[in-house]
């Protein structure tokens, strides 16, 4: 165990004395930033796709849009997110001549990626809302879109909040690959500490611990939110 003491000491030197913790903080910040902004983008994209998918398809335009959405969802669910990151960063963006900081590329790709997943969640949420809600809105002379936005979607979102929380947790974990395109996340920070102290055991252990803590905190927040929602259901 004396060995481990030495490892701990080395880590502490690099982490605290040599300011490694600032890198960790930046890494944590980037990780959360990519996950949260990514999810926000994903929710917007996912909602739009879900609405297109449940829209009645008598006319040509909704059919075409629906096929496009199916293609989009199929593509993003059919490839690993690392591949999407690499292809976007090294193929798509250079080809169309856009130069973007790695972090923004990550937010974009994770947003597009979670959009595909959120669309499925949102579609389930919309279909779980009683069809009578839409009928009542339409019978009052409101259009399909307005009823969707003002009546159905709010109820759908309430139903799927816990699932969206799980999506956030999944995103937090998946961001651990962003170093493939040079974005600085937790892995990069602890790898830096490990490389500079010639000792990887403790840094990676601490990294795992931080991931677990973050996930547990998010899970707790979701639980609290769920409980609050259920309470308001009763009180109202």
């Amino acid at each position, binding site marked *: 165990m004396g060995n481990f003491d030495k490892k701990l000491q080395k880590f502490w030197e690099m982490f605290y004395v040599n300011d490694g913790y600032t890198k960790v903080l930046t890494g944590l910040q980037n990780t959360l930033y990519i996950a949260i902004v990514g999810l926000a983008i994903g929710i917007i994209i996912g909602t739009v796709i879900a609405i297109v998918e449940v829209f009645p398809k008598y006319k040509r335009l909704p059919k075409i849009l629906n096929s496009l959405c199916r293609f989009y969802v199929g593509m993003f669910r059919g490839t690993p997110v690392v591949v999407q990151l690499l292809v976007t960063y090294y193929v798509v963006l250079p080809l169309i001549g856009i130069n973007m900081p790695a972090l923004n590329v990550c937010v974009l790709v994770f947003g597009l990626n979670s959009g595909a997943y959120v669309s499925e969640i949102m579609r389930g949420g919309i279909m779980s809302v009683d069809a009578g809600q839409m*009928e009542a809105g*339409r*019978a*009052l*002379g*409101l259009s399909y879109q307005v009823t969707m936005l003002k009546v159905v979607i709010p*109820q759908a979102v309430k139903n799927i909040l816990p699932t969206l929380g799980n999506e956030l947790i999944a995103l937090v974990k998946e961001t651990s690959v962003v170093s493939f395109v040079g974005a600085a996340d937790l892995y990069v920070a602890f790898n830096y500490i490990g490389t500079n102290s010639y000792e990887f055991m403790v840094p990676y252990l601490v990294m795992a611990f931080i991931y677990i803590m973050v996930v547990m905190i998010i899970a707790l927040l979701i639980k609290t939110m769920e409980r609050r929602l259920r309470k308001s259901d009763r009180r*109202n």
Partner: protein
Amino acid sequence: MIDVINLKKNYGKLEVLKDITTTINQGEKIAIIGPSGSGKSTFLRCLNCMEDPTGGAIIFEGVDIANINVDINIHRRHMGMVFQQFNLFNNKTVIDNIMLSPMHIESHDLRVKKLKNFFIKIRNTFTKNKKPIYEINTTRAKIKAEAKENAMRLLKRIGLEDKANVYPSTLSGGQKQRIAIVRALAMNPKVMLFDEPTSSLDPEMVGEVLDLIKQLVNEGMTMVIVTHEMGFAKEVATRVLFMDEGKILEEDVPEEIFTNPKNARTKEFLSKVL
């Protein structure tokens, strides 16, 4: 007011409505009766095109609303509909349920007018012959205040003004249905369509809902009501339609239908339910 001409409705191969033709005049109270699955609800839902007819025409105030090129939303505003399952908006308070549609429609109109004026003004600065702008004599706040006042008036009418700010989940079935009825009234409809408005209520709550409907009857509201309450139909209807297998088999004043039915099927049905 509503002319139904050769109305047909199929679900896939299933013919639910077979060539229905009838006229609903201003001030009439029409009760639709008939066995389960005979197409009563489908017929009612075709009247405001909640179901798109497969064939035929629904002429409402001179416009064939069955034509899919017609903006159905505009016409539906003049046709109130009340459902068996109430269908109050669960995410809105009682008063917001009532205000939502009137407020949305009016503020939407206001937005459109403002936008049009904006473009007309731009155009007018560049051309000689000036186009008049739309007159706007309201504001969003005013629209909201009026909608709220109207909603409160309607709630007072049914004695539920203290429920204005609660969510539907805490209300009894009878309260929900009465609110659903005044929500439809908030649009100032010219005709009200009811689909078995009391069928999912506990017996002790049927009365309060029927009383409200009777009030509307006395005010001269034109209405079409699908019902299993034969006593109610007998009491308020000016005409009763008996439907079976997607057809109107007999239509007459209630005295005739209930005491002296002509069609064999009507006789058989009434002998079972009366």
